[in-house]
Each structure stands twice: as structure tokens, then as C-alpha cells.
């Protein structure tokens, strides 16, 4: 119902933290958009800027095409569901759900009806008289959703609503939320750190890391053709196997990807070979998911990697074997955090000390805004330093049938489906031809 457009939105907090760095995002009418990323990546801050609870430092937030930067939250036609439910503890469940209606002046009769409708739709019609402290976690979340739905907003904003629930409940509520939102046809922005939630619920997924938007697309797109190394590593369980490879081009014949003790070959007629060939003599990242690997007999010809099983993980419905193939792994730092500022000099330091004293007295951050740190633009190389003597050996994850007849130490050969292999350069960007 409401469309959201974020144009070059940046948020820098007073202590210098860059929470959101130049994010541009569109949410279409009726779309379920999921903001995915690790803790501290800025996704909640983006949500709060759409809600009006934070003001962007620069950039525009547009709701239905109109600039909404200066609109207070209550005039934006939104409803928000919080991670810890944020129910009013001194009011009954019915009063909690009715609160927004009371504020907007709905009369008592129609108010009670709407509350009863919403409550019965969510399955909490019989606890309307209780206080929130007397409810279970799942019921509280339903009350929070009821409070959001009863307002008939144009936009739902959900900030990790399921993270405080146990995993069984989570799966059940996931389906409920998804179904409910689609039935109502309301645009939704949903924030989570759980990639399974994102992939199952979303119409489109936006992955963020350290305040920067990494990739946006449908779950199929971001899973099948990840735009950056980080996205590739973040999505999917088990994690995508990421190997360091050196490129050698044999013109008009094939491109060798030297993984260390073994190598894979890209035939020249594969269109990606041209793109990869640019990196002749350099190191790139080769990624392959566990589903691209199939165990085969050791002497099978073709793209086959020989390895020895390091260890097995039994998951009941399948087993994962982790192979040592003599390659080097690429480690992706999963714990994204905001970039910290540098210490100011001289007078700035004195003012900072005063700011810290005031901060302790008043209990919140105070002081002049620090300039944006210099490290924003630069990205470090994802590849290992050539001089490091302890490079992490790669463990290739392979899917096997449950409880296979192999053990640690057994040799195993896997064939690689070359069309399911991904390539990333040393900055982490995707190497590909003519993609979105």
C-alpha cells in the first residue's frame, strides 16, 4: 500500500559511528522486503529512519513518493513490531491493542469490535483481559502484531520480532506472519539476522554489512548469483566453500584455477572464462556450494577434486563431510561492526573528556559530532597475505546421504559442477559477465 524509497541515506551518530552509509533502497507496493545482516550492520537503524524514530544525517526518505524526513512517526501511516514486543505492562491485552485506536479517536463501540476481530484472527481472543506479564512469549508477540494490524497501516515495520522466541515457535510464527501480511497486502520491511528467515519469507532481500548495502534481489537471485563475497558466505547453510585460486590463462584453450595442490579448468567456450582471464597471474576467490559437489569414484575423469575426510557432521536428514583438498580457505569476517572514529587531538581531546564526564552523569552520549572517519571508502583485500605462514587450510563441505559408510580419514573424490561455481575478485566483488 505504501511505497518506500530511500535515496542515499546516511546516518552518523554523534560519537562518530557511521551506522548507515549511503543506502539506496526501494520497497514496492505490497512487497515483503527483508533487511538481512549481522548485528551492528545498520539494518535496524535503516528501519528506524523509515519509521521516523531517527533522522538521517543526509539523504531522503520518501513514502509514497513524498519526502518524509520531517514527518513524525504518527503521521507516516506505519505500524511497528519490536524485538522485545514493547507491550504496555500496566494495561491489559485488550487495552494494549486498543491503544492506537484510542489515540486516533475511534469511538468505544467500533473500537471494541475491531480489537475483538483482530484478536480472534490471531488466536488471542480469550486472553484479552490478562496483563502482558501473564502471557507466554508467543502470545505476547501475537499481541504486538495485533496492535500493529488493528491500525490498518500502509506499511509494517518489523524489527527482529522472532529473535526472542524459541526456535520451534519461531518456525510456526514465521509462517503465520508471512501469511497474514500477504493476506492484508501491506508493504512490509522486516529486519533479521537469520538468513533462513530471510530466504523463506521475503519477496526481496537486502543484505547489509557495516552500514553498506551489499546486495538486493529476490531470494533466488541473491542465493544463486551473490553480488559480493560477503553475501555468498552469509547465505546458505552449510556455508559456501570459498577457496583461494591463482589464475593461469592458456589462450583459446582453457583457464586454469590453481587451488594449491589441485586445479580446476574453465573451458574457453565458457563465457565466464573471458572475465576470469583478466586476472591472469593474480589470485581470486572461487566459491562452490555443497550442492555443486557430488561424490564420485576416484578415477572419474573431468573436474574432480581428490580429498580426505577431515570430519563428518550428522544432521539426521543428511550428513556433511568436510574434505581436506590441499587448498587455502578464504575467511570472511562475519561479525560486521560499525567503523569507529579516530581520537581527536588537543582541544578536541579536552572537550571529549568533558563530554565523557557529562555522559556518565546524564547517562547518554553528549558532545560535538566527530567528523566521519577516513576508513569509510577503503576495503581491505579478502585474500590472505602471501607472507603469512599459517594459512587456513580449506575444508570442503559436501552433502552426503544420512549416516554414510565412510569415516574421518577416508579418501573421497568429488566432482564439481563448473556452472555452479562463483568467482570473486580480491575486493570481494563478483566476477561475471552481463549480470544484473
Amino acid at each position, binding site marked *: 500500500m505504501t511505497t518506500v524509497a530511500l535515496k542515499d541515506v546516511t546516518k552518523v551518530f554523534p560519537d562518530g559511528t557511521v551506522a548507515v552509509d549511503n543506502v539506496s533502497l526501494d520497497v514496492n507496493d505490497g512487497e515483503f522486503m527483508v533487511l538481512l545482516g549481522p548485528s551492528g550492520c545498520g539494518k535496524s537503524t535503516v528501519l528506524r529512519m523509515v519509521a521516523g524514530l531517527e533522522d538521517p544525517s543526509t539523504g531522503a526518505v520518501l513514502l509514497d513518493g513524498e519526502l518524509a524526513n520531517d514527518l513524525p512517526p504518527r503521521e507516516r501511516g506505519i505500524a511497528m513490531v*519490536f524485538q522485545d514486543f*514493547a507491550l*504496555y505492562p500496566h494495561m491489559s491485552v485488550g487495552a494494549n491493542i486498543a491503544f492506537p485506536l484510542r489515540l486516533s479517536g475511534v469511538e468505544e463501540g467500533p473500537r471494541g469490535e475491531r480489537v475483538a476481530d483482530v484478536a480472534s484472527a490471531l488466536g488471542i481472543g480469550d486472553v484479552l483481559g490478562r496483563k502482558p*506479564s501473564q502471557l507466554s512469549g508467543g502470545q505476547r508477540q501475537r499481541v504486538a502484531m495485533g496492535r500493529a494490524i488493528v491500525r490498518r497501516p500502509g506499511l509494517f515495520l518489523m524489527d527482529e520480532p522472532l529473535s526472542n522466541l524459541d526456535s520451534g515457535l519461531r518456525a510456526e510464527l514465521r509462517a503465520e506472519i508471512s501469511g497474514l501480511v500477504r493476506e492484508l497486502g501491506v508493504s512490509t520491511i522486516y529486519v533479521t539476522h537469520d538468513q533462513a528467515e530471510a530466504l523463506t519469507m521475503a519477496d526481496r532481500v537486502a543484505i547489509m554489512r557495516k552500514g553498506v548495502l551489499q546486495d538486493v534481489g529476490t531470494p533466488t537471485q541473491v542465493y544463486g548469483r551473490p553480488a559480493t563475497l560477503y553475501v555468498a558466505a552469509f547465505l546458505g547453510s552449510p556455508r559456501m566453500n570459498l577457496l583461494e585460486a591463482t589464475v593461469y590463462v592458456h589462450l583459446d584453450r582453457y583457464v586454469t584455477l590453481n587451488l594449491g595442490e589441485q586445479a580446476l579448468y574453465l573451458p574457453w567456450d565458457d563465457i565466464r572464462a573471458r572475465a576470469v582471464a583478466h586476472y591472469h597471474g593474480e589470485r581470486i576467490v572461487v566459491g562452490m556450494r555443497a550442492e555443486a559437489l557430488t561424490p564420485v569414484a576416484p578415477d572419474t575423469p573431468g573436474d574432480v577434486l581428490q580429498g580426505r575426510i577431515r570430519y563428518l557432521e550428522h544432521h539426521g536428514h543428511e550428513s556433511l563431510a568436510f574434505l581436506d583438498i590441499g587448498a587455502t580457505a578464504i575467511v570472511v569476517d562475519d561479525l560486521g561492526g560499525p567503523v569507529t572514529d579516530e581520537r581527536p587531538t588537543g582541544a578536541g581531546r579536552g572537550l571529549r573528556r568533558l563530554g565523557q564526564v557529562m555522559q556518565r*552523569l546524564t547517562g547518554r552520549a*553528549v558532545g560535538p559530532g566527530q567528523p566521519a572517519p577516513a576508513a569509510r571508502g577503503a576495503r581491505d583485500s579478502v585474500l590472505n597475505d602471501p607472507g603469512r605462514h599459517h594459512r587456513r587450510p580449506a575444508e570442503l563441505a559436501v552433502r552426503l546421504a544420512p549416516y554414510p559408510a565412510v569415516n574421518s580419514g577416508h579418501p573421497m573424490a568429488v566432482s564439481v559442477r563448473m556452472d555452479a561455481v562463483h568467482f570473486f575478485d580480491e575486493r570481494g566483488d563478483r566476477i561475471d559477465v552481463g549480470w544484473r
Partner: protein
Amino acid sequence: MMTTTTPPAPAGTESVPGPPVTRAARVRRRLNSPIATGASILIAVLWTVPTFGLFVSSFRPEDEIKTTGWWTAFSNPQFTLQNYQEVLFGRSASSGQLAGYFINSLVITIPSVLFPLAFAALAAYALAWMNFKGRDWIYIAVFALQIVPLQMALVPLLSFFSEGVSLGGIELMPAWNLDDEEKFVQVWFAHTCFALPVAVFLLHNFISQLPKDLMEAARVDGATHPKIFRSIVLPLIVPALAAFGIFQFLWVWNDLLVALIFAGGGSETAPLTVRLAELAGTRANEWQRLTSGAFISIVVPLIVFLSLQRFFVRGLLAGGVKG
């Protein structure tokens, strides 16, 4: 196939709880032991003995009080209500007539509790949850005002009311010229001002610990600041309000200095404390009236404290509210 069942535990054996593991559990066990209980009872009795002695004295005739100690009343019981009667309803010039002063005390104390509570709650909410420039400096200033001793402000306040404010010959504010009953305004003013820094500090502590999500949920639901304050903050800070209310009530009820200076005029405005001081001070040989006067003076704070005391403990200990 034989199914084995666990044999039922023989009757009579109860599982003995093992020795407490954590330090807190050990302390709790020690504090619950009979020795600790006995010691605390002993301390409580010792503490109450003087008050009990006073209570007994208030029922003894004048000569007895002045010649023998109160403990002899048990061997030689002679009880009378003469003290109370004289103090409450006596018509002579030197007798108590405490009834009128009792009313004065109430008239002074109740607004002196309600005004600071109201102002401080509003101020604390604004300082905690509203964003405006200079907010933190204002809070620090109010917080720092606790340092200012009462005595420093007495003379300026008094001259403010009686002479007004004039700067270099220009009169900025005329004298209030309050007459007898209107002098209550001065006392309320003084008590409110002196109570506000502590009140704002206490309530700010409590209000700022309310979960931020609650405020944000209310904002998104469509509430403005006044609505949030009325519907959400006020019900949740009742323990803090009650805790501060008790403190303030006791302090104002028992206060002598401010009352003497601002309301010590006559029987229209003077509270109990002033009158009791007069009773003991003018002619020290009439101090048997003090015993009964003191107990009459205790009644009201006792009622207030007992009725609000459950809030008192919650207000002091409870740091915040769990949503």
C-alpha cells in the same frame, strides 16, 4: 518381556536439601537462622524502648512524670488522659490547642508534597525523553542545586515576598504582602523549591530506566508527549512517586526551620512543630505536654508511611520496568 519399574521411595525418607552452594544462598541461610532472628528481635526491642517509654509517660499524671521514671508506672499504675485532653482541647493560654495547629500542619504538608511531585515528574520526563538543546546542561544544573543549603536561600526568599524584587531602583516585582492565612503560599513555595532538585534527580533516574521501546511504540502508535506522559509514564512510575512522596511528607511534617521563618507568625499558619517547640521552650517545666503532643504529631506520618510503604521498598529497589 519384563518391564522394570523403579521401586517407590520408602515412606519417611525425605530428600534433605544439600548445603547451599552460592554465597547469596549461604548469607540467606545465616540470616534466617534462629540466632539471627533472635538478634534482630533484640535490636528492634531496644530501639523501640525509648518510644515506648514516651508513650507510657504520656498517660501518666504530671507529678509522676516529673518525679519518677516511666518504668515505675508498671509497679505503680496511675494512668490518666489529662495530658491529651489539655494538649488537644485546652483553652488556657499556655495549653496546647493542638487541634488547630494539626490542621495547619496538614495544610502545609499536603500541597508541599503534591507540588514538587507534579513539577518534578513533568521535568524528569522532559529531561529523560524529550530531545532539546541544552537538555543535559539543565539537568546538571538542577542536579547541582542539591548542594545549595537551605539556610542560604532563606533571607532572599523572605525578602522576595515581603519587599519584592527591584533592580537599581526599578521595581521588577512588587511585594506580595501576604496576610495571615495567605502566608501558606510562602511555605509551599519554599518547600517546593527546596524539594525540586532531589525530586527531579530521583524521578529522572527512574523514568530514564523505562524501556525505550515502550516510548517508541507509543510514538509510532500516535501518541504525543503529553499523552505518553499521562497514559504510559505516570502509571509506571507510581513506586517512585510514592517513595519520594513519603520522604517529602516526613520531611515537611517534621520541619521546624522553614515553618518558623515563613509561617511562624501566629496560630493561623504555624504548624505542629512550631507549637511543640513553643510548648517545651517557653516554660520548660510544662514538658509533660510534650509527651502527648509528640504522639499526636506522630499519628499522621505513621498512617502515611504504613499505607504507602510497599511502594517505598519497590520504588527504592526496583531499577526499572520489564516490558
